[in-house]
């Protein structure tokens, strides 16, 4: 007797909805098991992780702050992954977006400019992220170098550049030797939109991006090209689509969105440049993209769910003295289960008897 996989002739609608939900449920079950293994009451721990971030208005606003960059980045990754371009360096593109945008803020600091500065910063962030994303894209399209390795290596390079800038030339001279840039002036900050000042316009930019990406993927020729190159590269070539130019396009797009996420973080919640500006949003966004089944609306929901794990992780660190690594374990488990459950959409699991005529 053995298990075999049989390709489904038609992907069922129910399955593509049920599989992410099943993955989340399995993650929670295994998470509970893990907690009881390390001697923590599982129900209490899961409550801290997944319900405490929803408890009050402040927490909900914090959720939007964490979800915005995750969703923005994942939106850019979706067209990449749909077209078989494996950009795993969004974290670096985020950092370079933040650096490029901050350059504007630091160069114009204290000169009494108007609030158009923050718009310039957002534009610089988009361009910086896109330019950095184009490096692995050009290397792949022109020279056939694996984009997986180069995009990841560039994350380390971007982190080190940021570290150099805030400890060296961009360090605040009046900052008591702390490795941070000057605190940005009001003209270089995204305004707070609520009493607590946590909710910021970046959230609405993110919603706009969801709508635009959904339109592009579902209703335009570009969206068709992305799908075709991913699913049937030979057919796409015969159809006259240029897969190399598409590689440049999707990398630039995802770099731009990751860069936007980076400058939004710096001009929004953080307020200046620091050695670390992201708790790994660029990597977690990969999970968001897959959990959302590479669909913009799915990504919107998945982004909020993974934002929960970030806030829940911080709460658990305080309430249960759990190391932040638990969050990563959760995120890794979730991606495992998402991938496993995706098989159920594409294939039918069948038990066959050894030796029986198939």
């Amino acid at each position: 007797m053995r298990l075999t996989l049989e390709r489904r002739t038609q992907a069922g609608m129910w399955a593509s909805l049920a599989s992410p939900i099943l993955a989340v449920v399995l993650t929670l079950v295994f998470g509970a098991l893990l907690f009881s293994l390390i001697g923590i009451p599982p129900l209490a721990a899961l409550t801290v992780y997944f319900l405490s971030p929803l408890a009050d208005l402040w927490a909900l606003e914090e959720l939007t702050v964490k979800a915005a960059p995750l969703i923005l980045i994942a939106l850019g990754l979706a067209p990449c992954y749909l077209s078989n371009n494996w950009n795993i360096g969004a974290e670096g593109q985020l950092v370079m977006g933040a650096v490029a945008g901050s350059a504007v803020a630091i160069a114009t600091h204290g000169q009494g400019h108007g609030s158009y500065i923050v718009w310039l910063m957002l534009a610089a962030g988009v361009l910086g992220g896109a330019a950095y994303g184009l490096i692995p894209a050009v290397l792949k399209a022109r020279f056939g170098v694996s984009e997986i390795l180069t995009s990841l290596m560039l994350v380390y390079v971007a982190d080190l550049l940021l570290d150099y800038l805030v400890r060296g030339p961009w360090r605040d001279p009046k900052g008591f030797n702390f490795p941070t840039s000057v605190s940005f002036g009001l003209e270089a900050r995204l305004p707070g939109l609520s009493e607590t000042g946590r909710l910021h316009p970046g959230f609405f930019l993110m919603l706009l991006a969801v709508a635009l990406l959904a339109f592009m993927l579902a209703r335009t020729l570009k969206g068709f090209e992305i799908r075709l190159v991913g699913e049937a590269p030979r057919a796409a070539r015969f159809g006259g689509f240029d897969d190399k130019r598409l590689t440049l396009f999707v990398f630039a797009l995802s770099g731009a969105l990751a860069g936007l996420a980076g400058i939004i973080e710096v001009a929004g919640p953080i307020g200046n440049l620091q050695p670390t500006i992201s708790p790994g949003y660029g990597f977690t966004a990969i999970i968001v993209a897959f959990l959302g089944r590479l669909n913009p609306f799915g990504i919107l929901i998945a982004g909020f769910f993974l934002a929960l794990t970030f806030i829940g992780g911080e709460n658990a660190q305080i309430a249960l003295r759990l190391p932040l690594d638990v969050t990563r374990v959760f995120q890794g488990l979730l991606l495992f289960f998402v991938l496993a459950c995706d098989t159920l959409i594409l294939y039918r699991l069948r038990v066959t008897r050894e030796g029986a005529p198939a």
Partner: protein
Amino acid sequence: MMIFEAILLTIITAATPLLLAAIGEVVVERSGVLNLGVEGMMIMGAATGFAVAILTGSSLLGVMAGLFAGMAMSLLFAALVLGLAANQVASGLALTIFGLGLSGLVGFPFVGAKREAMAHLYLPYLSDLPFFGRVIFGQDPLVYIAFALALAVALIIGRTRAGLVLRAVGENHHSAHALGHNVRQVRLLAILFGGACAGLAGAYLSLVYTPFWTPGMTAGRGWIALAIVVFASWRAGRAVIGAYLFGGVSILQLHAQGFGLGVPAQALAALPYLTTIIVLFALSRLPRGSSRAPACLGQPFLPAR
């Protein structure tokens, strides 16, 4: 002479974990599977190896534990990509994220713990040779194991029937299947071997290289090992050159930082990563043919019946 000996010694210790992990991945990729989870398996090997070595007081048991931790991680990966035909790139990433987190939990009670580095093995007579005899022939056992593994894998892949089957499965899994070879079984064994090597590499880091445990201590070495496989054009022998090249770069930048050359420390620290990109780019400019990836690399295999 002392400074050169010291540099050579540190290059060997920096290159050995890269070499171990790269050899494992050569075998995995030759079977047609791309496991991007090397970083995750490696760091689990580091955490588990160190924890067990502290608890039992035995380096040998620590090394064994690291090896098995890497294997256990690779089994998870195998279940996904072989059992469920899941996307290999994404599964490897999941393995890395999961490993980075779980290693933090495993190693949490051991942060700040210290122990002696593994004892060195002085080969009789050879280590008494003048000049570099003591450095080259007076290393810890894993250095020799890494070289022996590279040699064995090169011979097995190139000269034996088992190696031929491995290559057949990686080049064309449908033909191999039609010839009666069990594709998934071959791949499972290759993945487990890769996990064992990555776990061993991790244990080397926490038991010899540092020797202590800090979260995230692999610092991208698993990814560099993946680049070495490409650099080596999927050959175990060339992986030795790759590992010592990258080990050399990472050590020389450390020494350069020590000398204070007026270059920012961060620029030097970025060297191993930049070298990876530059080397991959330079390889792509070489004439085709000599460095081709296995044809079925990254493709899931589903027998028609």
